């Protein structure tokens, strides 16, 4: 019993640290000197979201896209990264939107509730 208690004392902090580590994925690196934004991407009708399509979109628009999740079967959340001076990735988004396979790409803006200031 004594050993068990000692083990617990030794292991409890480790368990705590390990589990804390589970809760946070590693920071995604920003493109060097560029921008990084969470965006929503919808592809044109008939265009499937294949690896090839996404790779091609990246190279043509000179951006990096990292898939995060889906909001619907046709609306996807990506992390958009691009090089160069481009605050809030406005230019990178414009380049993506020029591609005919993209129905729209737009910033995943934050929403707030409408509890008024008293």
């Amino acid at each position, binding site marked *: 019993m004594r050993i068990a208690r000692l083990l617990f004392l030794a292991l409890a902090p480790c*368990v705590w640290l390990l589990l804390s580590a589970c809760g946070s994925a590693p920071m995604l690196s920003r493109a060097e000197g560029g921008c990084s934004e969470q965006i*929503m991407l919808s592809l044109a009708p008939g265009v499937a979201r294949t690896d090839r399509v996404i790779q091609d979109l990246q190279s043509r628009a000179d951006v990096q896209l990292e898939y995060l999740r889906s909001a619907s*079967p046709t609306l996807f959340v990506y992390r958009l990264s691009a090089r160069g001076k481009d605050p809030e990735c406005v230019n990178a988004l414009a380049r993506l939107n020029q591609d005919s396979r993209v129905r729209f790409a737009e910033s995943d803006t934050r929403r707030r509730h*409408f509890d*008024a200031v008293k």
Partner: protein
Amino acid sequence: MRSIVAPLTWLSLALFAVQALHAAEDNPARKRPAADAEPAVQRFIVKLRPALRLQAQQDATGESATASLRVDNGMNRMHALADRARLSLDAAYGIGPNMQVMHVSPIARGERPEDMLARLEADSEVEYVVPDRRVYAHMASNDPLATGQWYLQSVEKSAIDAQGAWDSTIGGKGVVIAVVDTGVRFDHPDLRRATQGGRLLPGYDFVSADPDGSFRTANDSDGRDSDPSDPGDWIVETDNCGAPADSSWHGTRVSGIIGALSNNNQGVAGITWSAYILPVRVLGKCGGYNSDVLAGIRWASGLSVPGVPDNPYPAQVINISLGGEGLCDSASADVISEVASRGVLVVVSAGNEGGPVDSPANCPGAMGIAGLRHAGTKVGFSSLGPEVKLSAPGGNCVNVNGGPCLFSLDTTANDGLTGPGNSIYTSQTRTNVGTSFSSPIVSGIAGLMLAVNGNLKSTQLIARLQEGATKPFPVSQEPGVPVCHVPQGSFDIQVTECSCTTQVCGAGMANAKGAVQAALRPIAAINVASTVAPGLDVTLQGGGSAAACGRTITSWLWTVQSSPGTPPPITNADSPTATVLAPVDDTGTYTVRLTVTDDVGRTDFADITIGPHNATTSAPATTGNTACLADLEIPQDSPPPSQPPPTGGMGGDEPSGGGGGGGGGGAADPVLLIGLLVAVVLMLAPSRKQQRQFIQSLIARLRKSLSKQTH
């Protein structure tokens, strides 16, 4: 065989009748005496024509005057009237000039009251006659804080007269209203889980990881999961998203306005007393991402979201008391129109900047709601503009120098500054204002409407909410209060009170009683059953029309509304299916109107334009067959061993976990719980070998978990 069929048929009919009666009178707190259904003695209010005028009329026409006219005595005239109408007068008394109440019974047994009324109406001495109907005091809940819920009453100009609506319905258990918000406190005794007799369905938490992989926004140590409990959304300086603030418990406050448990001798009343609330958590600390909001809206409506189990309780109404500045973005436009096209009503707060309507309230298909002061003028903070469909109370304080907030919107809340604390209610001192609370007022009214007519879809609900609204907007008599104008851009802010117009505040002020009355009307539907070709017959079907719950459609009438020349003939104009002739060219295009009437005389109409090659209408081809929504089947939890007293400590019936301190982990801390579990297992392990094996398996599991997170 016949001997079995007959009783079964009678049983079915009896059950159907019980169901219809239940649907028609859905207010358990308002009992009518059974005898009121078919009283032997009928009571009528009769307005008699002035005797002298009538005498002069009859002299001019040479008509013989009756004895009752020669002596202008009300009682004599009532006796004479009863005689002429072949009725036995039991009693009569005056209630005003030439106005009498008469208690009569038919001389012929079994005569219908409407026939008696018709004979009285036909008498030349009678200006009008109406049944002296039994009236009831407005329904009021017994919730002790309901007296402070001014917005549910009818005294203040913008109050919605929910009490008047409750005379017709208190809602239905087949209605689901989603609250897309910060989550909810399931432990509030005036909300509670549906499985424990409360209002709250299980719902879902859509708050995802932040872009850096952390769960700072979620504040509950994980991403999407099946627990939409609100862990708190307090903000500290290091959150870098504005001024530090206490937790808002916003979703709990919104939910209470819509459907707090009512008539339960506790706290406040909700607008609907029976609908279920589906909590969909999309906001956390510093708000939330639009993508999570949109995923939550889709899921709430019953649409699928990849990686999330389908919603077993799709909502007919979705309340969204959130948004952001700017035009309607493409993704929001997509999702809102997709959901609205399924018939789901999306009610959205206009915003609190006093400027142009925010997104997604400005998206096509959304029902944007602006905020009103108690006096019916626009409350300073409310955004406004042409996208607003209706206005509703937003709460206003009047006292600006620290006095009580006189017109706060009382609802359910929590007193935790960070993590959850005790369940409480907002009040004049714990104020609750914002357009956030205007939209749930409208969502709650929509819930009442669906209880009486479950076939109503998004566009019909919007139209009838507008139809039943209080109009026109009052014009402030206070000096210096301007008329509101359409904002010219985000720079054009109107943050002080202004008088609403239909250009900026929608069709009027939300009115629950009016909206329920509008919902009780039938729904006209038109289907074109044949191809349309020049000069040939077009078959129009109105059989898909439907009455409100408990009612039936008794008549169909097709009429030509507008025609360039001689109105074309309609065959079977008083039938569910009629035939018209298509014009030979565009110049002959004309409009036909279908008017449907139910068994209590309520009507609806729909128009269809007949051209040479097509027939177009905005009416549905068919209305649906769910006028009476079936109650949701909610499995009930077995009661806990000991229940807290209902009026005692408001701490709730669920452990709220940690998070009471500053900047802590919010709700129950899983790390702490797992640590304790490890300790217990280690202490219980009988040998060192088993302790070792346990630790090895634990580490293996953690490695696996880590690798999953980083992919």
